[in-house]
């Protein structure tokens, strides 16, 4: 059986699956039940200074669904915990005492003043928590008050606050980043410069879920008005994966531990984050959608896959895909593939034809009897036909072997690797040696 034990910046947990800081971790009752269900750790719902914040009393969440009401994306306009600080601290201490083997990280967000941060840290330390997460991500409400993503969008602030915390506590400091920026590497570098032990990402993405076309109010609507909220769930996973990989492969932050967050719903999602460099993963929406039991699927799926592939510990998989993420200009332009339609699997819907004919390269022929065939002379291997085909595995991208002639260009496929940097069409190309 694969060993899922996790050691993330010294914080230990029986598996890498943590609940992200959010409603599932907002109180003792929830967190105890989450631990009973098998979660390896939690990041407690973000604490702030008293007087505690208040939330709206109308809808706090909005969603988009697939036709069978599968939840695809969730958004929220909730703020940090709306319970008194003292109550949260007392509960954290009680839970940690009863579950010493689980990771207990406390998320924090206080005004951007040194004494505020230095004041709260001893209180958290006193609970016995394993670490803290600085919430520089919340994109709504708190940011209007100069906290959350208002800090996370200014690298200098990140560095400054991180440094204050590192100076004032022995606990590991994880900096949670907002995706609402143009280059995720900048805040990550700032966190590292400030001494952060790790970063976690992504927090939620600014979003409006829809507009009510009867009363023209954005959704979710509170008394006819709406505000942008934070988007999360399966829809954000590709964005989160990219941001994680950017930090993992940036020479300035390479090696900085990452806790991956964003749309993780199954073991496979988690494994992908880990392959791109995440040493632990955090989950919010999947738990909010299906309840705590989903972690059992994640544990069994991850260890099953690891066993099958012969990976024994998490260190065998963390970061394994990072070397394969490159800039576009490093991609092998001598690699040539062609779409191939398996006629036995084809159900003759013609979607590949419509897509290619109308929007791509006119590389699929529709023949008598609704037979669809790729025209190798035209196919550029864009993959659109594969993406629109309703039958999995019906269309493959088959690479041409070196020595074969590409019927589209008439050129012999070379076995040599050659990328854009040396391509003759590149005005800035360095002459090949």
């Amino acid at each position: 059986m694969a060993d899922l034990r996790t050691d993330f910046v010294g914080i230990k947990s029986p598996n890498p699956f943590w609940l992200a800081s959010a409603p599932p971790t907002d109180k003792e009752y929830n967190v105890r039940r989450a631990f009973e269900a098998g979660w390896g750790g939690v990041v407690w719902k973000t604490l702030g200074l008293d007087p505690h914040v208040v939330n709206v009393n109308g809808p706090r969440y909005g969603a988009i669904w697939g036709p069978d009401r599968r939840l695809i994306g969730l958004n929220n306009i909730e703020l940090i915990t709306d319970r008194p600080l003292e109550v949260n601290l007392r509960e954290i201490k009680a839970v940690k005492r009863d579950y010493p083997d689980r990771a207990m990280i406390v998320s924090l967000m206080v005004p951007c003043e040194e004494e505020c941060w230095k004041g709260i840290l001893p209180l958290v330390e006193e609970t016995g928590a394993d670490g803290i997460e600085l919430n520089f991500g919340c994109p709504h409400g708190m940011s209007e008050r100069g906290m959350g993503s208002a800090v996370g969008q200014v690298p200098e602030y990140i560095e400054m606050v991180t440094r204050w915390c590192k100076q004032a506590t022995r606990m590991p400091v994880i900096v949670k980043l907002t995706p609402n920026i143009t280059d995720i590497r900048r805040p990550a570098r700032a966190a590292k410069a400030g001494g952060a032990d790790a970063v976690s990402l992504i927090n939620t993405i600014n979003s409006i879920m829809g507009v009510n076309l009867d009363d023209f109010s954005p959704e979710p609507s509170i008394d006819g008005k709406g505000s942008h909220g934070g988007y999360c769930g399966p829809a954000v996973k590709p964005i989160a994966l990219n941001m994680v990989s950017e930090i993992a492969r940036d020479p300035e932050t390479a090696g900085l531990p990452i806790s991956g967050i964003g749309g993780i719903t199954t073991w496979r999602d988690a494994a992908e984050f880990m392959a791109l460099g995440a040493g632990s993963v955090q989950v919010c929406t999947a738990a909010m959608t299906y309840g705590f039991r989903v972690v059992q699927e994640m544990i069994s799926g991850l260890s099953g896959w690891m066993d099958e592939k012969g990976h024994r510990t998490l260190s065998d998989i963390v970061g394994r895909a990072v070397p394969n993420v490159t800039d576009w200009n490093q991609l092998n332009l001598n690699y040539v593939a062609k779409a191939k339609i398996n006629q036995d699997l084809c159900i003759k819907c013609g979607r590949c034809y419509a897509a290619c004919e109308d929007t791509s390269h006119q590389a699929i022929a529709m023949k008598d009897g609704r037979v669809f065939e790729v025209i190798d002379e035209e196919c550029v291997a864009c993959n659109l036909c594969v993406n629109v085909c309703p039958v999995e595995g019906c269309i493959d991208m088959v690479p041409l072997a070196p020595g074969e002639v590409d019927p589209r260009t008439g050129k012999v496929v070379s076995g040599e690797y050659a990328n854009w940097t040396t391509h003759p069409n590149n005005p800035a190309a360095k002459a090949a040696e």
Partner: protein
Amino acid sequence: MTHPSLTPGIVPGRLSAEEIAANFADLHPPLSDHEAHVEADRCYFCHDAPCVTACPTSIDIPMFIRQIAADNAKGAARTIFEQNILGGMCARVCPTEQLCEEACVRQTAEGDPVKIGRLQRYATDAMMAVNAHPFERAAPTGKRVAVVGAGPAGLACAHRLAMKGHEVVVFDARPKPGGLNEYGIAAYKTVDGFAQAEVDWLLRIGGIEIRTGQRLGAEISLEALRAEYDAVFLGIGLGGVNALRVEGEDAEGVRPAVEFIADLRQAQDLSKLPIGRDVVVIGGGMTAIDAAVQAKALGAENVTLVYRRGRERMSASRYEQDLAASRGVVLKFNARPVRILANGAARAVEFEYVAEGPDGLRPLGETFTLRADQVFKAIGQTLVPVEGLALEGGKIAVTGAGRTSLDGVWAGGDCAAGGDDLTVTAVAEGRDAAEDIHAKLMEG
């Protein structure tokens, strides 16, 4: 007193009103919004979609399904009605398993087609529920067209002509319009008076007058219509029935299945409709199936449908056969009636086993007898010929979009040669004839 279900002979009230209501309930209840959205999402929006090719009225099926998926059921209904103004009835009665759904690529892929018929009903119901009619008449042309027969063919023709601005008078021999929609289709396929509601809805286009109780060959004549109107369309269906030509055919209790069904469709209270205890239905088409299933639904104890050829030769689809079997009808194949045994009233039917060979049916030299106090003949309907019109295979000969051998006279639906005898085919032929009539009338 014996329980009413065991009473011999042809009697009413074999089942309670509740049992009858349950037996005649909507065969395919409407989809909920949620079900419709989930089902609509299964459609692949095929290129040059095979389902459209398979639809006799060429409804743009992927488009209307996409409109449903996008929460635009009324837009979907309009897409349907543009091609098929009786899209509501067709959604209920089309043998989709032999038409669009048979061609659906998901049938090929997984043996489970998109439920096109039920989605069509979802869309058409949405528009008809708010009583909206999607079309407006063009400016009056001053032309007048006579349509004979208010069945699907005649109604589709009349509607298209009215849309184009012509004045239409529809004549029908029966007291109510609708043709077999009103008098023939199985009751559980078109519940709650849908056939008349649909006619009323269709007439809201304006410019159509319906005159019932007008029979061609009696109250009206083709010559007179030709003289008075700019064009004539005949959609008179098949008014005659084939005879068994066996001994005992005139016995009491032996009758054409279509008559029984028409009575059933017009009955105010089905628990008052008499039905036999042992019912035998002879034939292999939809009429035979419908008569058998509805006899069973009225409480007949034993209903046996006997068809002279093998199962695969039945014109009723496998789906319809399974429906009958699931309702308790016994299906027997490869047997034909030899005589009806009667003592005034029918008692039994004697059949002989036959095999189909190159020279037709060959007796196998063995017989069997089924008890029968009621016998329904469903071995085909025939055209009651109209004087002056050339025939082909017993039906009115037509060329192009329903042009008959007489100038200015068009025909479509069951009475015209070519095409399957289906509601949707009648609609297509009526509509196409209207387009042809319009083109001809506007030539100048």
